[in-house]
């Protein structure tokens, strides 16, 4: 083996390896291949994974993704039907269903993404402009919200803690965008799987106004709480005065009633005893008068008595002149 032979063998080996390498290729589970010959697609796309063979040098492989792909729109500001500027961010999922078509029309994913940007962006604008903001925010038409137990009926009437009513809802708007866009995208060999609103927010310039509204709404609730508190307190204070008067007057009523009954009973007992006969009446008057003297006549009383009185009738003589009625005069000195 001379030196030249050895070089030739090495060269043949090298070229052979190169030819072999350029005539086999692998296809992954996640992709499919379009075979192109001088840039022109030939044959059906290779969709099954594994080791494959092609014509070396003149055929090229162009991998195209088989998976579900995502499209993430950048947030963009747009007006709603009620002239509110909102920032909308949507995402979509899509899949390449006709790789040949896709390859011919778009060639690579970058241009596919930019077509999706155009189509979905404009369909979103259309749909948003046709609907009021609340239609994009809410989903379930007849959902009844939970209410704060602390809210009063009056607040409920003022629509605090209630949802804004809708006609369609988010799902239907999404479907409208989807239906309009899917049709336009199909020509690129792309199937749009679905589209969803990712973020919807008030535009930077609208936000202060929204915040002001929220603040005023909260303030009104706060004021209501305060005035409810004061009102309820006043009610309780009123109750206090009412109940107090009621209790006291009831007490008075009861007391007077009892006293009256007591006096009546006592009177009944007295009259039962004293009114038995005329003698009893007369005797009562006499004894009661006697009793009264004891308390009426005090130390500083000046008593002027005549000798005609029953007590002193014997001062002038042993025999009293006739039957003289006891005659007394008494009085306070002052």
């Amino acid at each position, binding site marked *: 083996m001379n030196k030249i032979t050895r070089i030739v063998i090495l060269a043949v080996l090298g070229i052979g390896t190169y030819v072999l390498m350029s005539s086999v290729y692998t296809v992954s589970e996640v992709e499919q291949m379009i075979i192109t010959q001088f840039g022109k697609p030939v044959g059906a796309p290779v969709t099954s994974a594994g080791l494959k063979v092609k014509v070396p040098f003149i055929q090229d492989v162009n991998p195209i993704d088989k998976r579900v792909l995502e499209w993430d729109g950048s947030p963009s500001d747009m007006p709603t039907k009620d002239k509110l500027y909102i920032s909308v961010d949507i995402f979509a999922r899509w899949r390449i269903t006709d790789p040949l078509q896709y390859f011919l029309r778009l060639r690579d994913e970058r241009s596919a993404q930019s077509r999706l940007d155009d189509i979905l962006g404009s369909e979103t604008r259309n749909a948003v402009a046709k609907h009021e903001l609340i239609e994009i925010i809410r989903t379930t038409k007849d959902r009844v919200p939970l209410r704060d137990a602390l809210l009063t009926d009056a607040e409920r009437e003022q629509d605090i803690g209630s949802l804004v009513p809708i006609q369609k809802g988010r799902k239907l708007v999404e479907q409208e965008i989807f239906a309009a866009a899917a049709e336009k995208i199909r020509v690129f060999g792309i199937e749009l799987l679905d589209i969803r609103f990712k*973020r919807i927010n008030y535009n930077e310039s609208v936000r202060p106004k*929204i915040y002001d509204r929220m603040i005023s709404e909260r303030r009104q609730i706060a004021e209501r709480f305060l005035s409810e508190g004061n009102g309820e307190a006043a009610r309780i204070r009123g109750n206090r005065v009412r109940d107090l008067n009621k209790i006291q007057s009831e007490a008075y009523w009861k007391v007077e009633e009892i006293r009256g009954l007591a006096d009546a009973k*006592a009177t009944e007992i007295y009259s039962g005893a004293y009114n038995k006969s005329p003698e009893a009446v007369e005797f009562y008057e006499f004894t009661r008068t006697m009793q009264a003297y004891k308390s009426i006549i005090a130390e500083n009383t000046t008593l002027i008595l005549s000798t005609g009185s029953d007590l002193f009738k014997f001062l002038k003589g042993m025999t009293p002149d006739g039957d003289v009625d006891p005659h007394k005069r008494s009085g306070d000195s002052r």
Partner: protein
Amino acid sequence: MSSQNGNGGRGGPWGSGANSGPGFEDLFRQAQDRLKQILPSGGPRGLIVLAVLALAALGAWTSYYTVPSDSVAVVQRFGQYNKDVPPGLHFKLPFGIDAATIVPVKRQLKQEFGFTTPGAGDLYQGRRPRDEKTRETQMVTGDLNAALVEWVVQYRISDPVKFLFEVREPTETLRYVSESVMREVVGDRTVDEVITIGRQEIESEALTKMQALSTKYAMGISIDQVQLKNINPPEPVQESFNEVNQAQQEKEKLINEARRDYNKVIPLAEGEKDQRIREADGYRLKRINEAEGDAARFNALFAEYSKAPEVTRRRIYIETLQDVMPGIRSKIIVDEQTRSILPLLNLDSQKGDRP
């Protein structure tokens, strides 16, 4: 390297393969040096031996891999799905014929929205700019108010094959799904529900909806939990929300104070009422008993009086006067006929004389 990187697709989510080593070149060079020492003669034969040895080393280097205990490896041969491999040390065909992608199926993974726990690394979390975090939280509620919502989604990779081959960016798609669903759920609720009373309901509804979507999208991901973290009104509005809370407290306070005043007075008044009634009752008993006593005394006396009225009457009269008289300081006894002195009497200067 896993096969995806070799053929133009974007890297798989867990794209780092098990094998390729950065130390490979060093090792190769070392081997070369050592071989040069062993075979000092050099020449083309030596070169061939060197090349064969290098190939063997490369083959050995790329033909084993280890799978951690919380993961499985998905092996692809020439890009085609071959098998799932359990944890442990495993061998495969070298030179990129087999590629193993390790997927942590048993690990509980989470995505945080609106905040990041340092170290709790989700692949996509670290990348997000700060501004993005606030934008994630901003939501519009069903009564057209704004709220800031932070939440966490806990998930696992339930089907590694689907996870790798069905959807290109499963974790990123999960983020989109999660944000979209959370806004859908919050958009159906009032700001009060979102901030205070409806939290649990939101969590469970978001979980159900996210699960439904992840099944529909066939991402190979199963969502275990959705947890709401901080939910706040936007910064400028927070104060007025606090005002409402304060007003609520103030209301309770005012009512309690009024109740306090009420309670201070009314039970006392009730007691006093009972007191007065009882006192009146006492008066009644006293009055009746006294009357009974008086009547009894009178009856007894009258019974005796009836037997000798004249004498008794006199006796009582005289006895009474005898009782009364001594206590009186001035007593004037006048004759019946001498009434004329009466006007001259100076009543004040009179001094009582005692019998």
